[in-house]
């Protein structure tokens, strides 16, 4: 089974995680730009973060045989400081233009403030300008209302729904998203959001069209192997391999291929690992291993 995890924050994860992910069959991942657990206070912190997603992290993934893509955007949790958010939005274009950036994201709502809405709208406009899809973060709190509001903003911006992936769905929001042309992501977490059993039940109820699952593993309690673990549960529940393959590979690949920056010709081949390679003189090897 070919596996694509379309949402995982590898910056927060260890080399053990990369090894386990490769062993479990994960071939490619998308790392969305998000927040780091506490707010950044200077625009330069964002510049360095975006550069690390495109640079060191992509290189690090390659050292474990995993293709790494990213999305770039100002997340809603850090969109409420107008001075900082303006500075970040102004420098976004030079990152959105880069290879390896396959969407604008994560963008959307957190507390559902006017400032968050303004940043979301401006970034949808940027996505249109750079012909990129968008990855939407839906809020933890007041999620149903936040999802409806997000769809309203997408429509007001006149952005094509088939280029929108709305993430972190649950039983309440999935039917709302499927009633649009947007794609529906599901984050499988150990305690919150969605779990494997509930996900299998949703697939049985709603089918596989536009359905995507991810681990969204980050610096909190989360599990980078949640996509393979969900595959196991879906099999147990009698879901056909072809359907599972569509959810964990075909769908995310088709969605992000809309960026024009995902070379699908050899995506399912594991890249050769050459650990003598270096990134700006840095290697993942230590001392004697070099």
């Amino acid at each position, binding site marked *: 089974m070919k596996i694509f995890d379309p949402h995982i924050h590898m910056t927060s994860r260890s080399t053990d995680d990369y090894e386990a992910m490769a062993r479990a069959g994960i071939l490619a991942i998308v790392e969305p730009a998000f927040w780091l*657990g*506490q*707010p950044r*206070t200077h625009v330069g912190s964002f510049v360095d973060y975006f550069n690390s997603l495109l640079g060191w992290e992509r290189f690090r993934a390659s050292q474990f045989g995993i293709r790494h893509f990213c999305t770039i955007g100002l997340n809603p*949790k850090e969109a*409420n*400081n107008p001075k900082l958010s303006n500075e970040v939005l102004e420098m976004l274009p030079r990152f959105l233009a880069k290879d390896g950036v396959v969407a604008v994201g994560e963008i959307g709502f*957190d*507390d*559902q*403030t006017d400032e968050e809405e303004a940043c979301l709208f401006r970034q949808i406009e940027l996505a249109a300008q750079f012909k990129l899809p968008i990855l939407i973060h839906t809020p*933890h*709190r*007041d*999620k*149903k*209302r936040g999802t409806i509001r997000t769809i309203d903003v997408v429509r007001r911006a006149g952005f094509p729904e088939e280029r929108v992936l709305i993430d972190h769905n*649950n*039983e*309440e929001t999935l039917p709302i998203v499927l009633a649009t042309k947007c794609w529906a992501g599901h984050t499988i977490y150990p305690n919150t959001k*969605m779990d494997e059993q*509930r996900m299998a039940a949703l697939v049985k109820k709603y089918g596989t069209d536009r359905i995507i699952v991810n681990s969204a593993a980050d610096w*909190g309690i989360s599990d980078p192997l949640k996509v393979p673990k969900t595959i196991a549960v879906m099999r147990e529940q009698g879901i056909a391999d072809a359907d599972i393959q569509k959810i964990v590979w075909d769908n995310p690949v088709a969605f992000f291929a809309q960026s024009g920056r995902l070379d699908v010709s050899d995506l399912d081949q594991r890249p050769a690992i050459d650990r003598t390679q270096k990134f700006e003189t840095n290697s993942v090897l230590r001392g004697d291993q070099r």
Partner: protein
Amino acid sequence: MLTVVERVLAAALGPKRWDGSNAPLLVAYATAPQHVGREALALSPAELDELRAAAPDVGFERWTRDDAARALLLIARRNSGRTGDGFVTDALECFEQGDAREQQSWLRAIALWPEAKAFLPNAIDACRTNIIPVFEALACENPYPAAHFPDRNFNQMVLKAMFNSIALARIVGLPGRLNAELSRMARDYAAERTAAGRTVPPDINLALKDER
């Protein structure tokens, strides 16, 4: 106990407490526990009564010695003549440069200042934290949100408390701030939890306007 904290602190700071700059305050604010410790404040009933008379609804009974020391430092800064915008600037530096523990102390005392309203954007922003003790320092045993937050931010704070299994009874002034939108949010939250096969917080009725 308060006088002990005050005396220890005065000795630690020495006679040249304040020159023109805010630097001595920032250092003292950060290092307060080194001088007074981190234990519970353990106020006498008389001290507690006196404080409650001056500042109702502030949860002094949960304060630690370093919380008190930091509040006293800010009082000393005000008494040195830095009031109004000057106080706001100096106090905000303590908050913005503070670690989680310093921010907790700062938020616990936020309702004490005549300039309190000026801190509203910072208080709203503080509610976005993922560090639950920092969130609790503002959301719980603290009269500030009910007194100053607009409905939208107050509602988000209550929902976040539920989300983090914090007892709603700890939110000061909640009964007086109930509103239809908060009831709608709480009901949606209960529906979402039920659909996910999870339990609904037992005290969710405290957020519902029409079921009290």
